[in-house]
């Protein structure tokens, strides 16, 4: 087969980038499959799946500069926080609520990501609160004259919250270095997009004085392209952007949900056929970055990394209740 015309060189991506992006998609997918295994075994009471979103998350996350830029993710962003510096072990430390869980030391439910040293801002469960924090951080960066860009991720359900509209408005008024990234998987738990969003998410950008684009979230290169454009514009003083990435989640909202009550199996299968991972594998083969053997080896190595991370996390210590009164305030002792 002749070598297909490559799309990545003009995006500034090297072959090493492609391999790493692929590895992060696999890492997200395999961590997800492993956490469901633990859930079914009764070893993990709560799981937030990422499967289906890996292209959207890794492609958009890759457009940011790690160590400088700031990530304000939401709960489904496991593959994104892996890009931002989490390891498989970190993911499972959070899943099991272990003492060394980098997000919270076992205080929050799994998937409530955060880590100061990785510039991942701590998140909560109420939807879209992080979007306003992202706007405040972006304002601070601009005021201080730093050239960092802030990214914030949310689902299409999040775009109904007042916090989201407030942040869009504020970012538009002040032309902040901020990129809004909507992972539109068409369902907020059970509520379909048609009952959630009047018009289209990306078109709301115009009302807030910024450009809005939509892209196929299952196409990692396309996702990277539109995000990189927005990040570059933000870094050079061109203000915020809104990106809507169309995608799908393959499992229920969480392990406490049952999607059979609101989605047909046919619909799920139809979207699974658009899986971003095999799609990217085809691309990697077509540009001769990886062959079948290389892909098999990557899959095997990544599975091993996930198994090792999960094992280490299982063996790690749980938090000590004697520490549970700590970090309420910086300078006040509190008593039960």
């Amino acid at each position, binding site marked *: 087969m002749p070598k297909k015309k490559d799309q990545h060189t003009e995006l500034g991506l090297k072959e090493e980038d492609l391999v790493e992006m692929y590895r992060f998609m696999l890492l997200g997918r395999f961590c997800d499959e492993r956490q469901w295994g633990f859930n079914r075994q009764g070893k993990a009471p709560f799981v937030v799946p990422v499967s289906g979103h890996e292209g959207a998350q890794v492609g958009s996350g890759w457009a940011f500069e790690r160590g400088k830029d700031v990530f304000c993710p939401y709960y489904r962003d496991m593959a994104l926080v892996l890009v931002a510096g989490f390891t498989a072990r970190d993911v499972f430390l959070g899943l099991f609520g272990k003492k060394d869980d980098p997000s919270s030391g076992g205080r929050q439910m799994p998937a409530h990501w*955060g880590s100061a040293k990785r510039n991942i801002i701590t998140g909560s469960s109420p939807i879209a609160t992080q979007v*306003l924090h992202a706007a405040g951080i972006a304002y601070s960066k601009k005021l201080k004259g730093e050239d960092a860009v802030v990214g914030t991720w949310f689902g299409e359900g999040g775009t109904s919250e007042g916090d989201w509209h407030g942040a869009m408005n504020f970012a538009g008024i002040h032309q902040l270095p901020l990129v809004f990234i909507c992972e539109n998987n068409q369902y907020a738990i059970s509520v379909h997009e048609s009952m959630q969003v009047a018009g289209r998410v990306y078109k709301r950008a115009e009302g807030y004085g910024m450009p809005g684009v939509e892209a196929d979230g299952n196409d990692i290169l396309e996702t990277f392209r539109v995000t990189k454009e927005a990040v570059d514009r933000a870094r050079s003083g061109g203000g915020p952007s809104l990106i809507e990435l169309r995608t799908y989640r393959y499992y229920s909202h969480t392990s406490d949900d049952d999607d059979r009550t609101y989605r047909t199996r046919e619909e799920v299968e139809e979207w699974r056929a658009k899986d971003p991972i095999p799609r990217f594998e085809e691309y990697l083969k077509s540009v001769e970055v990886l062959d079948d053997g290389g892909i098999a080896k990557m899959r095997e190595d990544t599975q091993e990394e996930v198994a090792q991370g999960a094992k280490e996390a299982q063996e790690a210590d749980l938090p000590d209740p004697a520490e549970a009164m700590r970090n309420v305030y910086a300078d006040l002792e509190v008593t039960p």
Partner: protein
Amino acid sequence: MTEKNMVQTIHDTLYDEMKRDERVLVLGEDVGARGGVFRATMGFLDEFGKGRVLDTPLDECLIAGVSIGMAIDGLRPVAEMQFADFIFPAFNQIVQEAARIRYRSNGDFSVPMVIRAPYGGGVHGALYHSQSIEAFFAHVPGLKVVAPVTPHDVKGMLLQAIEDPDPVIFLEHKKTYRSIKGEVPDERYTIEFGKAEIRRQGSDVTCVSYGLMMHYCMEAAERLTSEGIEVEVIDLRSIYPLDMDTVLASVGKTGKAMIVYEDNKFLGLGAEVAAQIAEHALFELDGPIVRIGGPHVPAMPYAPTLEHWFLPDADRIEQEMRKLAEF
């Protein structure tokens, strides 16, 4: 020393601190060109520019939410809620985010922000310009809630709030803005939170208060000296952290305790103070614990007769003090 009223003190303190520390910025509705509806930031825009004197959209949730982001990124935001009554759209950001960020990240993140909130009644403000909001926020671990009511305390505690590594709700009683004056030291100083001030020594009754009511308690206590009744008046100043040591020591001396506040009596600060007195000093008491608080109606009504009916005053406090002293 310079004599100033409350709002002048807030203005000058903020101004000097913004001069001293470029991390400090003010944001809120009308804080820029208008200088704040109470003039607390008058002239700031010209001196510090739009970047640090930020007129926000009319969105209290936004004010709190972006302040959190600014604080996380190393700034020291001082947000103004135009009236405390309008803080509720920001409740989620304050309670679920600002208060919990240190705890939920196990100390990885902190939110050093101040929310200034003009509160309290007696200003013809009716239901939505008179509210006391302290109980909602003092209930939440992770927040500090303070309510200084002398110009001296306002300066020291506002500077402490800005320096504080955690979020602080800084309550300013509107009726005291221009009615209460006092000497303010010219040099920079801070006042530690959680230290009550004994405003008046007395041996017969301990009267615990804060906010505007503290001034009314002082007035009532002065009147009673002619009858030979000496009331010890404690100004809590800080609602959380709460200085119960000072309260309990005083109750140990007088054997009589009353708590006066204009917030709804039910589950207000008086309930906590009374409970802690009962837990720790029951056998020191020579009379029932008395609470004077706002009546159980949704908020302060407008007509002068109704506003007067709602708000405790020095006459009513005096009567209750006398009754308790004679018990």
